[in-house]
């Protein structure tokens, strides 16, 4: 088979190269001993990393992004969990409409989400802060949280929940002792992926952040100064590596959960 369709494999390898090579220039030049981002490479250095770690503004922006990402991820998952349960377990009138509304943000350009929330906040007189950024991020995280959680909820046997209710557990205790542990891989994966969506977002934060910069806003500000580029590259390389690790972990948890489900169905 491989010999007959070898060209597809070759294509796939080129495709992966197309995805990864352009981005690989960031880490490559982050170790280059020159302010100019150009060939030939002039020598190895870690000074850009040292400069970045010494920069208080980077630390502040990183801290802001971590805070916003954590709160948005927890909020989106906390909203998504009951919603996913309702949509997979009960026939709810209007359930489809709520799901469509929650997924709507995928089909609206980010700039429109950003300016429309900006208008609402200014009409209400709410000052811009990291909280308003978090609100915007909950909206864009929700579709991911709900999708991941719904597929997990679809995966396990609802008889387990019914058995718990029949054995006299309350609805709340059933949720904590049966539903939640079974949904846990989905919950973790939803938290991680929502965090990534928030951590990655530039445009919504750009409109809603006021004076507090998140990491992408800080990077955007630095791009205007050519002599700052190597430090941005160092920062970017770290972000790329950290997010790749996080994504692999999130997907691993999710697929591990899926295997788990097959075992359960088989038993």
């Amino acid at each position, binding site marked *: 088979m491989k010999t007959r369709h070898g060209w597809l*494999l070759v294509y796939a390898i080129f*495709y992966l190269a197309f995805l990864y090579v352009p981005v690989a220039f960031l880490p490559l030049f982050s170790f280059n001993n020159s302010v100019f981002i150009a060939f030939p490479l002039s020598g190895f250095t870690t000074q850009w990393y040292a400069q970045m770690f010494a920069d208080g503004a980077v630390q502040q922006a990183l801290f802001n992004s971590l805070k916003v990402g954590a709160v948005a991820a927890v909020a989106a998952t906390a909203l998504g969990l009951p919603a996913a349960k309702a949509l997979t377990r009960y026939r709810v009138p209007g359930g489809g409409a709520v799901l469509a509304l929650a997924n709507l943000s995928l089909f609206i350009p980010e700039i429109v989400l950003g300016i429309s929330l900006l*208008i609402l906040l200014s009409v209400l007189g709410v000052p811009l802060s990291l909280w308003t950024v978090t609100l915007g991020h909950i909206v864009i995280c929700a579709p991911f949280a709900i999708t991941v959680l719904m597929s997990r909820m679809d995966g396990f046997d609802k008889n387990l929940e019914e058995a718990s209710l029949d054995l006299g557990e309350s609805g709340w205790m059933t949720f904590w002792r049966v539903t939640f542990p079974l949904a846990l891989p989905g919950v973790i994966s939803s938290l991680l992926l929502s965090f990534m969506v928030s951590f990655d977002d530039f445009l919504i934060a750009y409109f809603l952040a006021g004076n507090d910069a998140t990491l992408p806003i800080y990077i955007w500000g630095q791009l205007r100064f050519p002599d700052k580029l190597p430090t941005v590259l160092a920062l970017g390389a770290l972000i790329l590596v950290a997010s790749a690790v996080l994504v692999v972990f999130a997907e691993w948890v999710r697929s591990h959960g899926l295997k788990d489900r097959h075992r359960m169905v088989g038993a």
Partner: protein
Amino acid sequence: MAEGGIGARITRFYRRSEAARGLVLLSPTMAIMLAALAAPMVLLALYSFWTQDGYALNTHATLAQYATSLGRPSYRALFYRSIEISALVTLITVLLAYPMAYFVAFRVEKQKFVWLILLTIPFWTSYLLRVFAWKLILGYNGVINSGLMSLGLIRQPLEFLLYNPTAVVVTLAHAWAAFAILPIYVSLEKIDRSLLDAAADLGDGPVRRFLRVTLPLSLPGVIGAAVLIFVPTTGDYVTPSLVGGSGGVMIANVIEEQFDKVGNWPLGAALAMASMAAVGVVTLLFVSAMRAAAARIR
């Protein structure tokens, strides 16, 4: 069991009624989405009918902002360019992604998970950095120019690489590549393999089999991928700002200006509404054309 106070009765009704339970569980999501997504969109629509008088807002309804948005030639040109660029990006990404998704769905057997992870990592990693990488690559003193010069292939840096619509198309096609794979992969993976065997048994060659079975059955994924790329890229701000130059400006750049430097929010709102309407119309036309084409193949 049948007796009990009002509280107990409500509890019992709640336990028994799926609809009531479901609505209670959905209400937090619904509340947030109404407050932070639906309400802002309604306000945006309202603003587009208002006027900015210096620092004050004139809430007398008028179509003046739409007249400006659609009437001014420079804005019209931006609408056309944004849609053209996004359509081209959509076409390129979907065409490039299809064989890749096909490979993972039909040829990879054991390491599907690894391939899918490799293809989705870029999807989740910093969009801003992926776009910025292209500025480094295409720049006057960038990776390509300095690379070719140090190899002795060119003497002068190539000037046509950065700051034009082509640079925007290339960058967007790369930045959104991962978005096209998953929907197409999912629809290919769903295809019942016995249909393919049946087509082969009935004497269809591989090409005919692909055109008459695989391709039509995977069209929902292709349409999904196309919409998922076309709609957000028309409103992209980062890419035209970083690599577009003055020739590669898109509609989002002028919308941003109205909310930033210019301070004419109603005009910005009207530009946003008009661009969403234009994108909506193009998307609907595209989807119905694709559906019609799929029906004809069958």
